[in-house]
């Protein structure tokens, strides 16, 4: 009991804005940006070698006002979102198959481990050659990069289910379907969410790299444009957006974890 109440107390303390701990991250970010700005203005001076945060903001404003940024974000977002969704569904299906069928495990296992370790973004040009320069080639690249961590985590999650819990459910008369919904799936959920986290990271890289190789719009296209023109503020706009998106998605998954795994949150304190 004392453990429980102690956990609750420490969480409150960390969240209180009167404590220095609460402000540490914010102060660190502001200080870092300030040093960057000062270095760009007074030490390096040349925007080509070190663009400053203020120049990035100005450039971002220009792109937003002209409506270009929205267009690029939309294209990349569709490619990433569609690819990730397909990768998650496909990954869970294949992972389930491999966890429940030993022939499937033997047949697919070597392919999955080999392709998981391969940086498959490298074959993006080939995919673009096959599927065209529009969004579907990027969707495919995202899928082949994001699906493998999903497969591996789903399989591991389903396999790691405590045998004792399955046995308990069966003793209470659970059917195969009930064992899946009430035991296997909830038990695998932490693994599934960890898989999604990995898939998001890989998918973000995949969409940008694929766009770099050949596209008509998107963040990667913007990057390629900036790089060709040595427009460093524009380059950093793309990078900043990617960084913020990555952080936002990680935060979102953190939220999903708290929602789906309340028992873990309460244990972790």
């Amino acid at each position: 009991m004392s453990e429980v109440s102690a956990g609750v107390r420490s969480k409150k303390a960390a969240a209180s804005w009167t404590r220095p701990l609460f402000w540490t991250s914010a102060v660190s970010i502001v200080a870092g940006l300030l040093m960057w700005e000062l270095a760009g203005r007074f030490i390096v001076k040349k925007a080509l070698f070190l663009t400053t945060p203020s120049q990035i903001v100005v450039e971002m404003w220009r792109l937003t006002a002209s409506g270009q940024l929205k267009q690029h974000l939309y294209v990349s977002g569709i490619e990433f979102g569609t690819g990730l969704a397909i990768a998650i569904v496909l990954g869970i299906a294949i992972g389930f198959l491999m966890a429940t069928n030993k022939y499937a495990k033997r047949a697919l296992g070597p392919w999955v481990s080999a392709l998981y370790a391969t940086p498959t973004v490298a074959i993006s040009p080939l995919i673009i050659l096959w599927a065209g320069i529009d969004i579907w080639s990027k969707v495919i690249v995202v899928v082949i990069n994001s699906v493998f961590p999903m497969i591996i985590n789903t399989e591991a999650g389903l396999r790691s289910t405590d045998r004792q819990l399955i046995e308990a459910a069966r003793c209470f008369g659970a059917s195969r379907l009930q064992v899946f919904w009430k035991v296997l799936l909830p038990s695998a959920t932490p693994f599934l969410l960890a898989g999604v986290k990995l898939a998001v990271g890989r998918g973000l890289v995949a969409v940008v790299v694929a766009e770099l190789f050949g596209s008509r719009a998107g963040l990667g296209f913007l990057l390629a444009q900036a790089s060709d023109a040595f427009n460093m503020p524009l380059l950093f706009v793309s990078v900043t957006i990617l960084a913020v998106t990555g952080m936002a998605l990680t935060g979102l998954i953190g939220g999903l974890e708290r929602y789906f795994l309340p028992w873990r949150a309460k244990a972790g304190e």
Partner: protein
Amino acid sequence: MTAKLDIWGLSKSFGDLEVLKDISFKIKDQELVAIVGPSGCGKTTLLRMIAGIETPDGGGISIDGKALKGPGPDRGFVFQQDSLFPWRTVWQNAVLGLEIDGKLDSERVARTRELLKLVGLSKFEKYYPNQISGGMRQRVNLARALAIDPKVLIMDEPFSALDAQTREIMQLELMRIWQEGRKTVLFITHQIDEAVFLADRIVVLGRRPGWVRETIDIDLPRPRPLSVKRTPEFGAYVDRVWNLIERDVYASVQEDIEATAP
């Protein structure tokens, strides 16, 4: 004598390994019978057969004269250690059996609330298993088994993972709850003194393959306070059971040593 749980001529082999050989015993209504045996006595297999998830090669099991076909809500199980679902709260764990059986109506919900009160966990319904102690978890386990209102309660070394003091408290608690509801109970344990303290009768099993070595009636008056454990009669029963299984226990220890020897 009409038996609540009747086990006759049960045998089972896995390939060449004979696990159970002609196991027979009966449990009367409202009786508490303990099974004691060394490791290798096939108790896990016996338990799985009573649960209906393993079929015997020979013999059979019946409850109230009806032969068992698969798992059913006429049997409630309390397992060793943590068989609670970590992602379910105390309450959600307690109603698991009812949920699986599709019988989660208001009457049974109310009854499960009563059961949680009976095991002293009313205030902890919203807690997760990792937030409560081992003793509390085994109380939830007990409530979960009782919630389906089974004809026979089967307890598989329910207190083995608890520390010695908590175990004694839980034994007393089980006695109290059993005396209130008077279920028919099959209690499997390694602890001889636990078996003598709780049981009306002890079935002593032998090993490799599992067989019924002897059945001993325990004539100690009820209710039994913890102090009964210090009486000479209690000691005599413990000695008797120990003498029966001593050789088997040494044999199983020796086997473990040989199996792990480099």
